[in-house]
């Protein structure tokens, strides 16, 4: 009997070295990516145990999590007190292990999930793991990419494989088209709000449907980035011509000689029409509105035109933390911080969207506004278009690439109790600093809010 297969099934089969007798499979790993915060300890621990990476050329390491994001940073500058030890230890271990290191002052440096696609390290059909929960972002290019712990990173480096039980699968189809002014970030928040913070049930999620096909590669990266925020194993989108065009000519992408064979493999990467999933949801893209979080997990979100839910036993702690009473509008809440950055929304298209709103405007008094591009390559491209000047003239700080204010690491941040609108991915208590109240939103909403000095939709501020 012919069994239909999902894209995920096909990639799993392609990478299965063998089935183990304990219900797990031994899955071959094509790329391991590390960063200085959790990769450092994996690399050091691997070397201490007397192992070496099996394929050092297939292991990549960047410095992004706690590097200083000031423009004039040095090679060891950290935004975390005493964080330089992570940077220097990672550099030394990477050199000893002979892996590819993208160091702080290298032209290609940036956030792992921004530079991996930029450099063509992630490609359709390969397996990529990284000790970072937002590795699911990279499923946007049709790769099987998922976040792991440091111990599994050691395992992947030493053996070239991971022992994994195949997760269940969920298909999420987004029909129709997003309305004008509605972004991939709004879509991601809408999906999480609809299905709940644990709604993906540890599944491999395949995003499909007309609204997903219409997204650019950068927008798909934003959508897949947030999959971990509703408890997905990972997310994946079948690769299409947009992905091939995006990758063509990038440093680690297949070269001209290998391109036809790679193309022919990539074209085979899609789900059979009648493939079977454990769960399926269909959402209508036209129901998605500009969306902002009000609470302390990403599912606690509403359309900007809606009201925060009434106070209940379930949400009281979140409302109290956020300084909200319930049943109120988010618009008109004063903010004191605005941040555009992170692996979710710091690519060139994100900065362009924000710049188009900021152009000719200035941030409101009392608002600390910061933009940190996702990579040095994004930063250079933005500067070539004059986008940096628009940000700076509007009163934004303009940083060097890194994770920056997406999370608090003990150093510089917003003041306790301050309300911050942020293009990042987590609004947990204390995520951006002790007592800091984070509202997640798209770069466009962050820009409009920075100008207005309060949470605002782009339309109402122009």
């Amino acid at each position: 009997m012919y069994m239909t297969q999902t894209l995920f099934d096909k990639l799993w089969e392609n990478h299965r070295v063998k089935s183990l007798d304990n219900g797990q499979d031994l899955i071959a790993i094509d790329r391991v990516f590390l960063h200085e915060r959790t990769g450092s300890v994996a690399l050091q621990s691997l070397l201490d145990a007397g192992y070496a990476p099996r394929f050092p050329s297939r292991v990549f390491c960047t410095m992004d999590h706690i590097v200083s994001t000031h423009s004039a940073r040095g090679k060891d500058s950290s935004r975390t007190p005493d964080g330089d030890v992570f940077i220097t230890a990672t550099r030394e271990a990477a050199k000893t292990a002979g892996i590819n290191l993208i160091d702080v002052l290298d032209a290609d440096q940036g956030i792992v999930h921004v530079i991996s696609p930029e450099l063509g390290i992630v490609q359709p059909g390969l397996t990529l793991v990284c000790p970072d929960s937002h590795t699911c972002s990279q499923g946007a290019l049709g790769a099987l990419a998922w976040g792991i712990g440091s111990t599994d990173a050691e395992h992947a480096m030493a053996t070239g494989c991971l022992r994994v039980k195949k997760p269940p699968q969920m298909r999420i189809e987004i029909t129709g088209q997003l309305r004008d002014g509605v972004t991939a970030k709004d879509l991601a928040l809408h999906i999480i709000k609809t299905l709940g913070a644990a709604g993906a049930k540890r599944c491999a999620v395949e995003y499909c449907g007309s609204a997903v096909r219409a997204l650019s590669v950068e927008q798909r990266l934003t959508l897949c980035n947030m999959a971990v925020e509703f408890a997905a194993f990972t997310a994946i989108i079948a690769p299409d011509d947009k992905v091939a065009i995006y990758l063509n000519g990038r440093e680690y992408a297949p070269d001209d000689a290998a391109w036809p064979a790679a193309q022919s493999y990539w074209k085979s990467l899609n789900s059979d029409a009648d493939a079977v999933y454990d769960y399926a949801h269909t959402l209508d893209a036209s129901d998605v509105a500009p969306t902002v979080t009000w609470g302390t997990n990403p599912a606690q979100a509403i359309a900007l035109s809606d009201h925060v839910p009434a106070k209940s036993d379930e949400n009281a702690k979140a409302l109290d933390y956020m300084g909200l009473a319930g049943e109120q509008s988010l618009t008109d809440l004063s903010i004191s911080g605005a941040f555009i950055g992170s692996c979710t929304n710091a690519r060139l298209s994100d900065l362009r969207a924000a710049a188009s709103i900021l152009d000719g405007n200035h941030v409101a008094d009392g608002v600390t506004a910061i933009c940190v591009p996702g990579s040095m390559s994004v930063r250079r491209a933005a500067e070539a278009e004059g986008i940096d000047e628009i940000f700076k003239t509007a009163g934004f700080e303009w940083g060097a690439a890194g994770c920056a204010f997406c999370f608090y690491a003990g150093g510089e941040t917003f003041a306790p109790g301050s309300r911050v609108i942020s293009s990042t991915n987590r609004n947990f208590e204390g995520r951006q600093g002790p007592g800091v109240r984070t509202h997640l939103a798209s770069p466009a909403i962050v820009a409009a809010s920075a100008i207005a000095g309060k949470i605002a939709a782009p339309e109402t501020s122009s």
Partner: protein
Amino acid sequence: MTPFIKHTGIAAPLFRDNIDTDQIIPSREMKSVSKTGLSSGMFAGQRYITGRTPNPDFVLNRPEYQNATILLSGANFGCGSSREHAVWALKEYGFRAIIAQSFGEIFYNNCVRNGILPVQLSADAIDTLGREVSIDLAAQKVDAHPFDIAKGDKYMLLNGLDPIALTLKNEDDIVAYFSDDAERRPWLY
């Protein structure tokens, strides 16, 4: 790694949903390139008032839960960041098992890799658990409540195995796979 076979201990209740790894170990508490020295930073945001002054209201600071080795929680425990430091901190503090309605995927796997047993139980079953709880992994029971665990995870925990050494026993299969794959997808090598 210490095998997990049976364990009886004090179970501390932390009944909230979506306790993320930022709460379990805040980024600012990850101070060295090491898997140790993390337990004093565990739950730092809730466990201390200022500096290292204990918050008397926090469950682990209450006299009846001193020496707790089991943690009880709600849905989606360990969601968020992949930082394995969360598990290393819990392990160093002395926790042997976490019992919750559901877990973050990466956190769950990190527990298994470090000899901590993650047990998924219904809210009703968790409600019946008292201050002292007994877990029998071979029988897959928490007190009288049965629980599910993947065969592979159970095997690793029961035997306290080093996964790398175990995987390398499949060396011939691994070499054969990569040799075939390098012909099938040469552009990736």
